[in-house]
């Protein structure tokens, strides 16, 4: 009887998921309630977790709770620490949830809400969660080895090097792109700039407190820090209202670029306890609070989604970024559906702390489902605002025009009615000088979040406070990725350099620290700079480049996972990782090809560069713009080369893996698995 009831409950949930998805997909005309999005996502996730992840755990991975995990065998209280599965879920989620699932869906909303929402839900269930879960399992069975180490051991030496290079490449591009998102959010915004600037002394204060006053008392220090940051958000309004201070904190894109580059260098070179770690604590608490508040706000307000399911920009001529749904929707929404970067987290700290193999399902698959839900909420927040406002905020001036009236006319002509007065009123009510041409996703997401929050608490009176709270949350989030990523990049460069000249690899030798910090900052700083001076706003070129590199890393992870599973003799179920891998290779190769060779100058790097070069040769560029144009030509060609190198790397890895797979399948080679030997657990069931 109980079994029948269970089946009925799951059938009911599956039916609700199907009905809600059908409602989202087939609804036309009137705005649709966000409740349908929440229902579709939550019910789909529950069914996917209950059925698909259980199938993977039982059939594909055969999780074994009698086997001692690394945290039991090697427990040392430092790296290998057995951790409660709920606590570890929180750790893992805090590590994988970055700005990607917020910014990606916001940008992809230019296609309408439908393609992005479907990819977020389906992509997470069948690709992203699978990658995180399987890589976590593989790493647990190898004492917490990294993706690069597993690629080297299980695929080939060259595979390991490719994985390491892919990680470094994605790190550099990622940091450049997320820094560009911050620059676009803070540009000409004294309130937001002041608030974010305040987080630096607050973090330094916390750093000293945690190091010398009360070592390791993170909770109390973070609560003090959060209170100070919230005060800084309120104080930002006083700064914006004061003519003198407002001028001081109104910075141009280029000034902000150099400020962020200097900050990144400092965060990498200074002791980690002083700036980086306390900022990370602040970010983690505010991140958890803001995501919870957004979810609660959407459930309480149940806003109507005003964006149509599909916009006219499915034709590839979108103002936010150019390119058709296939492949660019899947490149733009990376982290909310599948992110290669997660494989680095799944093969880092988490496997060393897991208590039982069975917990890998809850932590690996479950945390990614939650991240996907964050992406769906971001999509709802972006699509709940008037489409005209969304396009006004996210379109560069070169596409819609610099003058407000002309830009409003262009957007209205696209079929999304908008007046310049509406934008002026909105900017005034959120406490900004302007909201036109604020590409990057962060400002439009902040407007969407602020509208939801203010409907719950405070009404229009608090709209400006909520907007700047949302901007601060996004920027804090991103700066944490920026400084942590810069430091890791520094270590990678030192490791590589240490192979050539040993002293360079010494982590406590200051000349090496300074030089490697300068190198990594220069690398991502260059991408940031080219984004800021890009005539099309930077996001159009750089976000797809980031998406391609991130999805390529996911493909690398799935190649490694597939190879390991083949070696384990799981041929029958190999499609579980093989299908998402093939899909990722198809979308990344197609996107790479189009980004390099497309004849549309807004998509193809080379076409754009060649067009400018022809204008230059024909003397059509004014003398004052020649140097700038030459720089843009160089940048576009550089982006084409970077894209080609990334694509070649994955092709080489695929070829290496294919040789392995052929050898295993033709039984010409006895597969060698590099798992740690089985040791029975000494912990009682339920520990």
């Amino acid at each position, binding site marked *: 009887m109980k079994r029948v009831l269970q089946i009925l409950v799951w059938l009911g949930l599956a039916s609700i998921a199907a009905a809600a998805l059908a409602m989202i997909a087939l609804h036309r005309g009137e705005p649709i309630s966000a409740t349908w999005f929440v229902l579709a996502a939550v019910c789909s996730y529950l069914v996917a977790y209950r059925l698909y992840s259980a199938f993977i755990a039982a059939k594909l991975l055969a999780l074994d709770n009698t086997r001692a995990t690394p945290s039991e065998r090697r427990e040392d209280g430092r790296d290998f620490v057995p951790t*409660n599965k709920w606590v570890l879920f929180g750790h893992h989620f805090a590590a994988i949830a970055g700005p990607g699932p917020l910014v990606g869906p916001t940008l992809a909303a230019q296609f309408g809400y439908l393609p992005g929402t479907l990819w977020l839900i389906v992509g997470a269930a069948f690709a992203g969660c699978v990658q995180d879960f399987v890589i976590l399992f593989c790493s647990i069975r190898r004492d917490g080895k990294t993706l690069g180490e597993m690629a080297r051991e299980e695929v080939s030496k060259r595979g390991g090097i490719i994985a390491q290079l892919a990680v470094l490449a994605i790190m550099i591009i990622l940091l450049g792109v997320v820094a560009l998102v911050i620059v676009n959010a803070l540009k000409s915004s004294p309130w937001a700039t002041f608030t974010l600037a305040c987080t630096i002394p607050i973090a330094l204060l916390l750093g000293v407190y945690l190091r010398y006053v009360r070592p*390791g008392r993170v909770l109390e220090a973070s609560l003090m820090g959060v209170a100070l940051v919230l005060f800084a958000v309120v104080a930002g309004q006083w700064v914006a209202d004061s003519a003198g201070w407002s001028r001081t904190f109104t910075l141009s894109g280029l000034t902000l670029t150099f400020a962020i580059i200097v900050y990144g260098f400092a965060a990498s070179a200074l002791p980690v306890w002083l700036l980086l770690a306390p900022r990370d604590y602040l970010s983690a608490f505010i991140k958890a609070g803001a995501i919870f508040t957004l979810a609660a706000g959407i459930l309480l307000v149940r806003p109507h989604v005003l964006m149509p399911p599909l916009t006219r920009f499915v034709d590839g001529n979108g103002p936010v970024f150019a390119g058709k749904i296939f492949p660019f929707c899947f490149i733009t929404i990376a982290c909310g559906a599948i992110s290669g970067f997660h494989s680095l987290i799944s093969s880092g700290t988490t496997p060393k702390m897991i208590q039982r193999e069975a917990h890998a399902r809850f932590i690996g698959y479950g945390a990614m489902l939650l991240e996907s839900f964050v992406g769906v909420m971001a999509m709802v927040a972006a699509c709940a605002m008037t489409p005209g406002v969304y396009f006004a905020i996210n379109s560069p001036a070169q596409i819609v025009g610099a003058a407000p009236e002309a830009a409003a006319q262009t957007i209205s002509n696209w079929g999304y009615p908008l007046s310049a007065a509406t934008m002026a009123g909105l900017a005034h009510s959120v406490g900004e000088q302007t909201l036109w041409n604020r590409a990057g996703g962060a400002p439009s997401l902040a407007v969407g979040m602020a509208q939801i929050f203010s409907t719950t608490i405070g009404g229009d009176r608090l709209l400006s406070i909520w907007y700047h709270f949302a901007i601060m949350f996004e920027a804090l989030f991103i700066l944490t990725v920026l400084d942590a990523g810069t430091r890791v990049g520094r270590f990678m460069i030192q490791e590589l350099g240490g192979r050539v000249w040993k002293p360079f690899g010494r982590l406590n030798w200051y000349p090496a620290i300074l030089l490697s910090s300068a190198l990594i900052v220069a690398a991502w700083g260059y991408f940031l700079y080219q984004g800021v001076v890009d005539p099309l706003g930077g996001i159009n070129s750089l976000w797809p480049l980031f998406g391609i590199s991130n999805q390529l890393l996911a493909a690398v992870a799935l190649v490694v996972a597939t190879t390991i599973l083949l070696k384990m003799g799981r041929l029958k179920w190999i499609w579980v990782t093989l299908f998402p891998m093939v899909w990722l290779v198809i979308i990344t190769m197609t996107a790479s090809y189009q980004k390099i060779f497309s004849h549309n100058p807004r998509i193809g790097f080379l076409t754009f560069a060649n067009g400018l070069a022809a204008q230059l040769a024909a003397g059509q560029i004014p003398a004052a713009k020649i140097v700038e144009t030459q720089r843009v030509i160089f940048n576009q060609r550089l982006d084409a080369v970077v894209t080609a190198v990334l694509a070649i790397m994955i092709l080489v890895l695929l070829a290496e893996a294919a040789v392995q797979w052929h050898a295993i399948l033709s039984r010409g080679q006895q597969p060698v698995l590099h798992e740690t030997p089985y040791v029975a657990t000494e912990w009682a069931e339920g520990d």
Partner: protein
Amino acid sequence: MHRLWSNTRPRLVRFWEGLREWCGDAAYENYRKCAERKGQQSVLSPAEFYVEQLNKKYSRPNRCC
């Protein structure tokens, strides 16, 4: 009321312990317990342990995009 409190209290304690573990407050206590169990002679001070943990944590990718 007393029954409600006695039912709620263990849950609150568990939540508090979980929160302390999640944010890292309990890390040093766990390390000390582990060191005692293993009979280690030299044990790091809270400040040394804190800095060592941070240096390890931020030397590998630990924050995603």
